[in-house]
């Protein structure tokens, strides 16, 4: 028979017989000795040759008197939670892998998204084309959409207009502003001037007529990209743009 007892197992069997605790031996050792004559011989020989050795029976035996500490309650709870999670994750994974419709369900969603995007882009009339995202509004919506350039106004920013190159404005195009904004402009055209502030979707958020070439806007604007324009004598004098940063306090002046 292979896998005979090691010297340690042999010694353990001898300890067991001396202490009369053979039934407490590991099952493998008991089973092997029951069937192996050679190991029986070795156990018997060692037992008899060490028979007269003094034996300290008061001392706890390293194997038979070992203290088996049960796992702590916290550990048991942790193991139970971990086991429950593992079961839930395992079941989910099995369900996903076994569900034949899972893959098909994803396809129509992706396709419809693409179709919707294409339709909205193609069907929008050029003159009134809306920006690809919803207009910026101070009280909601996608923040990024509020900074998308207006296709109608963007091309006019900084372009030489019919009124001539004398028109200049402040704040400079693209300035980041906050709080009351001071607008100034200089043009050869006489007043009165019509000044309009528009958001990036071409909606007018402020509009006024004045004789002076300076205006301070106290209206609080939400974060986003804005355009402003000056019209005099029925002619567009100036188009510029500025940004309002929502993260800054609304107390500064326009740069």
């Amino acid at each position, binding site marked *: 028979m292979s896998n005979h007892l*090691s*010297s*340690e*197992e*042999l*010694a*353990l069997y*001898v*300890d067991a*017989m001396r202490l009369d605790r*053979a*039934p407490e*031996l590991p099952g493998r050792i*008991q*089973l092997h*000795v*029951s*069937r192996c*004559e050679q190991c*029986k*011989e070795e*156990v*018997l*020989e*060692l*037992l*008899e*040759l*060490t*028979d*007269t*050795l*003094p*034996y*300290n029976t008061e*001392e706890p*035996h*390293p*194997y038979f008197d070992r203290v088996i500490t049960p796992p702590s309650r916290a550990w048991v709870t942790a193991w139970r939670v971990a086991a429950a999670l593992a079961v839930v994750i395992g079941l989910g994974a099995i369900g996903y892998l076994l569900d034949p419709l899972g893959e098909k369900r994803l396809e129509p969603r992706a396709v419809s998204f693409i179709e919707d995007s294409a339709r909205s882009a193609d069907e929008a009339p050029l003159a009134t084309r809306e920006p690809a995202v919803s207009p910026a509004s101070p009280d909601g919506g996608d923040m990024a959409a509020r900074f998308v350039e207006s296709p109608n106004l963007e091309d006019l920013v900084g372009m030489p207009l019919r009124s001539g190159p004398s028109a200049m404005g402040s704040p400079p195009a693209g300035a980041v502003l906050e709080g009351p904004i001071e607008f100034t402009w200089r043009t050869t055209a006489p007043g009165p001037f019509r000044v309009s502030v528009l958001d990036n979707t071409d909606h007018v958020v402020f509009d006024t007529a004045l004789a002076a070439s300076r205006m301070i806007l106290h209206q609080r604007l939400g974060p986003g990209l804005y355009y402003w324009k000056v019209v005099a004598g029925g002619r567009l004098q100036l188009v510029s743009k500025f940004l309002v940063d929502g993260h800054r306090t609304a107390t500064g002046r326009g740069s």
Partner: protein
Amino acid sequence: MPPRKPKTHIRTPSPASPPEEESRPASNRREVELLHQNPGQLIVEYRSMIGIVVWNMIQRGMFPPSEHKELVQAVTVKLLQLIPTIRRGYDGRSLLRTYVSAIAVNTLNRLARGQRRSERGLPPGDPGIEDPALDLADHDIQVYVRRLGRILHLFPDYRPKLVVVLKCHYRIALEERELRQWYPKCDPFSRDHLLALSRTQTTELAHGELFAALAPIVGEAEGRRVSADTLRKWTDHRIAEILRLLNGNPPRSSFDRKTLGELLERLSISQGELTI
């Protein structure tokens, strides 16, 4: 009927004085600490233990008594050489001294085999014992009775069955508790039948008939079909194995099937129940 003294062949124990007995051994924990921190000291402390093991082997006739000192020295040196192996091999389940004595016994067995081959020129496997026929003294019989008791503990897997079958085979009165330990659900009819079988004389019931009566009950206990012949062969094998263990390897006695029965009867008288 008082049991007859079995005729055996044993080697005459060599007259030599036993080594001094060890005082109370140190704790296992301390010995393990010494193994790792000061192995030389550990082996020095084990010298008396080694002396006793060597003495016991001399008593068995494996070495001449004059070699006691040299053998103790040889085993001590060998153990010192084996310290790294002992450190690796000992996993802390048994007592360290039992483990080290197992290694000492292995070392002595190798030395004995080497001596037999070289000094006597005997082929391997030949035990090379002299066979003076001796009548065992009562003390010696007790030694073998004790040995038989230990041998029965070396069949942990089926000791209760072995005891019942051997007692029936040798017609040694079975105890009811021995029977219950083997077959707790034994019905009263089978129980009475077995108890009666173990008390019959060989003249009343031949061996073949005994196994024919025993086999159905063994079959019931094991939940399978057992023929009388199968049971007889199983018993024969177990008896042969017990005899080999009893006589030793190399053989130091020559108990046979008949004298085994007498030893078993003595064991039964001295111990009462054999299954505990």
